[in-house]
């Protein structure tokens, strides 16, 4: 029996391990062991006043605080019967642009590219291709600058609230970012072209893709939950089809559909389901790539991220140019007991929140379903599909190929709990 074991996977967030046992060319055992303790955020939120929730949930993750803020805000607004639209909603999308920019630039260049370019780490990549890494950091920085201009901080922004914004951000610091965003848009176009030239491992999977879909905009916050298998559900019915369960080997919950299937959320799902809603330059980049959709190779999620980078720089530029704050920045809240759910697309996939609140606006119940919990069982199935290739490889290459697969999902085990280590065992 051949075993592959990675006791601590690098370039993923959190701590965990991976064990693969292979016999007769088939994976007989695969475990993504998540052994960091659960983060207990849901319990931590109980009895908190609702306006504390967005700033607490933002701290679940340092890389996608906006997603946690936005999903919680949308859920709590739903409980109160509020919907923010107009400039307040546009500003939320702009904040989200900042998050996608910094997260995708980091993942493409510093987390996944080293795998494809044969560098053991981003540090090694910086030694052989310093200009690539410098450009990546510059592309990332404009995302953080955007977060700071809107949310007051480049990590864990604090301006978003239930009902809108604590205050309208000044227009001048946002407009000052336009030249850098224009530079980054061109850098992203180049990134998209470069992404097509990389040597992706062969692996095609018949995925069920799940993402938020909106007919008029690239799905982020508003819209329905679409599946490539044909299901179209309003947010309120998400839990009727997508179910979380405990599994023995993991502190993270694993999700499946009510039919028992595993599904994928994240950039591949979004691009495959929502490519018609991309901004014009991103659509052009996708067309120029001559890629047949849907993309079904998980390693090629890097291409989807690269196309999305073009989209989000482009959308950020358009939103800043159209920024016209007027009137109150937030609605006056009328507290009442209620229950509401909300979801948004974190850079690594769909993020669902549900809360019950009492008449004083205090949380009585909280449920958070992060994207990585939804992707974990899918990653295990992908590894099983990869097993026949792994068994033919030298141990080191097999380990790197399996690790690379996990990294291509950009798993955030800190959010799902925390994350990862790999063991592949050949049982022959």
């Amino acid at each position, binding site marked *: 029996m051949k075993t592959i074991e990675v006791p601590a996977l690098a370039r993923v967030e959190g701590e965990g391990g991976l064990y693969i046992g292979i016999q007769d060319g088939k994976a007989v055992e695969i475990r993504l062991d998540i052994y960091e303790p659960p983060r*207990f955020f849901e319990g931590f939120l109980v009895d908190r006043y609702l306006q504390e929730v967005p700033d607490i949930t933002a701290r679940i993750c340092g890389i996608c605080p906006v997603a946690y803020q936005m999903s919680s805000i949308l859920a709590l607004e739903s409980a109160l019967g509020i919907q923010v639209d107009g400039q307040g909603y546009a500003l939320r999308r702009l904040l989200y642009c900042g998050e996608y920019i910094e997260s995708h630039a980091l993942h493409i260049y510093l987390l996944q590219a080293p795998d494809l370019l044969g560098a053991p780490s981003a540090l090694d990549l910086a030694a052989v291709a310093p200009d690539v890494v410098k450009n990546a950091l510059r592309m990332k920085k404009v995302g953080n600058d955007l977060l700071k201009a809107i949310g007051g901080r480049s990590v864990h922004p604090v301006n978003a609230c239930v009902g809108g914004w604590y205050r309208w951000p000044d227009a001048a610091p946002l407009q000052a970012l336009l030249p850098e965003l224009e530079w980054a848009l061109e850098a992203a176009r180049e990134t998209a072209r470069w992404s097509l030239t990389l040597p992706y491992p062969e692996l095609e999977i018949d995925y069920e893709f799940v993402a938020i879909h909106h007919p008029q905009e690239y799905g982020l916050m508003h819209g329905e939950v679409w599946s490539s298998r044909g299901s179209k559900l309003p947010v309120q019915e998400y839990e009727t089809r997508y179910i979380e369960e405990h599994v023995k080997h993991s502190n993270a919950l694993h999700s499946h559909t009510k039919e028992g299937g595993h599904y994928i959320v994240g950039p591949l799902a979004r691009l495959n389901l929502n490519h018609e809603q991309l901004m014009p330059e991103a659509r052009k980049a996708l067309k120029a790539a001559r890629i047949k959709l849907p993309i079904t190779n998980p390693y090629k999620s890097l291409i989807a991220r690269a196309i999305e980078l073009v989209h989000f720089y482009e959308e950020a530029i358009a939103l800043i140019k159209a920024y016209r704050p007027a009137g109150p920045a937030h609605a006056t809240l009328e507290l009442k007991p209620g229950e509401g759910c909300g979801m948004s697309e974190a850079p690594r996939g769909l993020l669902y929140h549900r809360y019950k609140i009492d008449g004083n606006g205090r949380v009585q119940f909280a449920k958070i379903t992060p994207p990585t919990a939804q992707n974990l069982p899918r990653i295990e199935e992908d590894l099983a599909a990869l097993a026949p290739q792994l068994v033919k490889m030298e141990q080191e290459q097999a380990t790197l190929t399996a690790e690379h697969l996990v990294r291509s999902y950009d798993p955030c085990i800190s959010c799902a709990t925390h994350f990862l280590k790999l063991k592949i065992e050949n049982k022959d």
Partner: protein
Amino acid sequence: MIRMNILVLGIGQSLRGDDAAGLEAVRRWQTLHPATAARVRVEVTELPGLGLLDLLKGMDAAVLVDAVRSEQPAGTLLVLGQDDLAAFTPGSGSAHGWGAAETLALGRRLNPSLADLRLTLIGIAGTDFSMGAELRPEVRAALDKAAEAIERKVNTLL
């Protein structure tokens, strides 16, 4: 006399127990020594990650104050210089939370002039980094000592 650009940076997550020690120590120092604090740039940040390199841009010297996991008892102060930090082997390179040592190593690769930065890390040993917990009493008791260590270090740089 040429004035140095000095950064005092408190690092840590305010909702992760002892991890907040760096933030709290810098705030304590600002309260105890406002005149010194007014002469340098002071920042606190929860998870600077690669943004640390931007914070260090243009600085001649930096004093980073952060909680550290250590074999030492909680509340023990560790004062490390540039050479000590350079000796740190970068860890797993966690995707999202690039540690100070990894980030500085990357920065030196990309920008060799970073090696000229006079860097000090004042580490406060913690043991409980769980969610929402307060600072452990031993860590809280060490904040005054950490504030005085910051003051001494900054005075040697001014």
